[in-house]
């Protein structure tokens, strides 16, 4: 199924709103939607909800031979999947443009910025290294998949613990979690993507576009940064013209947003760690509220209602009073009939005409009769049944 296109009315409405610095969900230009990070019972499993966008990341590991070019480094593998479950526009097993961009952006954000110490993943140089695989699944698409995916991936990597290994000579022993405590990955820094949507040839910009806003945007600029104010990747897309100042301004906004999100992630990790340590309840089952229909819940948009009564009164007082006189029916021209509108019924009036017509017919008949009857008398008496008046007329 193809993605439902946006109607022109909706498009104009959204763009008009953006021009007036108003967004559909009542957010400000630089506001993020609510971010919720929750972890599963397994290490390295994390879901992130960003508004209604929902992303699941799962980290797994296995022992593989290293790449020839880098024999002492572990391998990082990222895979993002867009299942048709998330949006009717996504098709399974098809390399769409969106999928390629998201995958590459995730790779560049997390691998090329070297946020994970890959050398610590080496078991035996040139023979065995850990391959860390990060699978990101999009569960629900409501815009800004990139930011949600990057938060989910980095949170899952921070949460993940790999099994402990021991090396004796050339023998490698992998211990189960019961035998020895698994070890976490060494994470140097946490790069987080921040997306900026540009509208109207770059004159307006929004942070964290939702799905509708993504449909009307001209282009996207994705910046990945960490809390040390280091830029880990920049990517513009969508065929927009940017100016240098715009990029620099975006980087300033991004640094603020990233420090907020990083704090959120560390807090979520801390909460999960504490819950596990205290033997409390953790995992997705705990984080989802029970006996609640989640689909129908709607977050209240933070609308500014302080002066709404005054504005409404103002509008009412300014508006013209509704007309009290019921408009009288307009007769376009004589002879045109109107249905309804309280006019008199004109159907009865036509009865006379009908009678006249009938009379004409009888008259013609009589003339025919005259021809038929070979008589010299002009005043031939024709007998017509029923009506006297008609016979009179026919005798004219």
């Amino acid at each position, binding site marked *: 199924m193809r993605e439902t296109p946006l109607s022109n009315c909706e498009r104009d409405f959204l763009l008009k709103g953006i021009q007036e610095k108003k967004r559909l969900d009542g957010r400000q230009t630089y506001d993020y939607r609510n971010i919720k990070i929750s972890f599963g019972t397994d290490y390295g499993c994390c879901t992130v909800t960003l508004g209604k966008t929902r992303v699941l990341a799962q980290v797994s590991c296995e022992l593989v031979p290293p790449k020839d070019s880098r024999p002492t480094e572990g391998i990082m593998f990222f895979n993002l999947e867009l299942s048709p479950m998330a949006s009717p526009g996504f098709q399974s097993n098809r390399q769409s443009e969106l999928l390629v961009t998201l995958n590459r952006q995730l790779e560049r954000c997390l691998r*090329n910025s070297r946020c994970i110490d890959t050398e610590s993943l080496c078991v035996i140089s040139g023979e065995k290294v850990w391959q860390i695989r990060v699978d990101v699944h999009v569960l629900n698409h409501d815009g800004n998949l990139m930011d949600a995916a990057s938060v989910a991936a980095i949170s899952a990597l921070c949460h993940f613990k790999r099994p402990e290994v021991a090396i004796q000579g050339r023998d490698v022993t992998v211990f189960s979690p019961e035998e020895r405590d698994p070890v976490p990955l060494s994470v140097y820094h946490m790069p987080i993507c921040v997306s900026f949507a540009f509208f109207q040839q770059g004159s307006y910009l929004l942070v964290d576009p939702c799905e509708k806003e993504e449909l009307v945007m001209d282009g996207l600029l994705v910046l990945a940064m960490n809390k040390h*104010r*280091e*830029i880990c*990747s920049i*990517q*513009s*897309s969508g065929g927009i*013209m940017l100016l240098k100042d715009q*990029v620099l301004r975006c980087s300033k906004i991004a640094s603020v947003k990233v420090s907020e999100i990083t704090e959120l992630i560390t807090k979520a990790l801390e909460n999960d760690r504490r819950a596990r340590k205290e033997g409390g309840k953790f995992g997705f089952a705990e984080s989802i509220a029970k006996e609640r229909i989640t689909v129908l819940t709607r977050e209240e948009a933070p609308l500014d209602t302080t002066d709404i009564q005054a504005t409404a009164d103002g509008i009412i007082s300014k508006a013209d009073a509704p007309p009290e006189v019921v408009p009288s029916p307009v007769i376009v021209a004589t002879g045109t009939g109107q249905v309804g509108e309280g006019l008199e019924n004109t159907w009865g009036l036509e009865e006379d005409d009908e009678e006249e017509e009938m009379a004409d017919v009888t008259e013609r008949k009589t003339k025919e009769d005259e021809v038929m009857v070979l008589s010299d008398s002009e005043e031939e008496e024709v007998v017509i049944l029923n009506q006297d008046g008609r016979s009179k007329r026919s005798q004219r």
Partner: protein
Amino acid sequence: MAGLELLSDQGYRLDGRKATELRKVQARMGVFAQADGSAYMEQGNTKALAVVYGPHEVRGSRSKSLHDRAVINCQYSMATFSTAERKRRPHGDRKSSEMSLHLKQTFEAAVLTQLYPRSQIDIYVKILQSDGGNYSACVNAATLALVDAGIPMRDYVCACTAGFVEDTPLADLCHAEESGGGTTLSLALLPRSENIALVQMDARLHQDHLPALMEAAMEACKGLSKVLDSVVRQHLQEVSVQTRE
């Protein structure tokens, strides 16, 4: 690669260039007879071929055509012998499809596509030898090919890379400098209006260094635009001399 000194104390780079110096650029336009436009580009040891077909009727499914502008179709491929290790797949892997996508986006921004509604412009680029700055070589070659095909554009699209070593921005990186793990910024610029058609950066860079790096990349792009302009003018002169005879 940690031991490699990318910038010597005297301010010279690995291949003896200064920090802001570009590699030698050589280009030819109209290298194929069959295509509507074609160009060959050398930036140092990076060599690229670009071919343009169109604007023509939309091929394949008619549903792809746009009612108000032309569709740009890009395909990026690397020759199997272009890198030190032989490439198994010349195109179709993630990196190449990303590159194709970026080229497409760059030229969608630069070509006046609204002049050709319901049509298609094909741009095929091939890297013959890869020595860093593949994207920029492709963009520059494709620009020349588009000029050769006579397709109207807002301006030349010039692309260049820039890196950052020891607080100094380096322009037009070669493969050794790119693979060292340092910052690489690729920029596609429309030099006259200073509009950025595409920007892409890899690896870590502190926010405070970004303006300097972007400035260096933009300067490099402007330098390239002069070279491209002279190539176009020279080509036109040659063509006009030939047609006069």
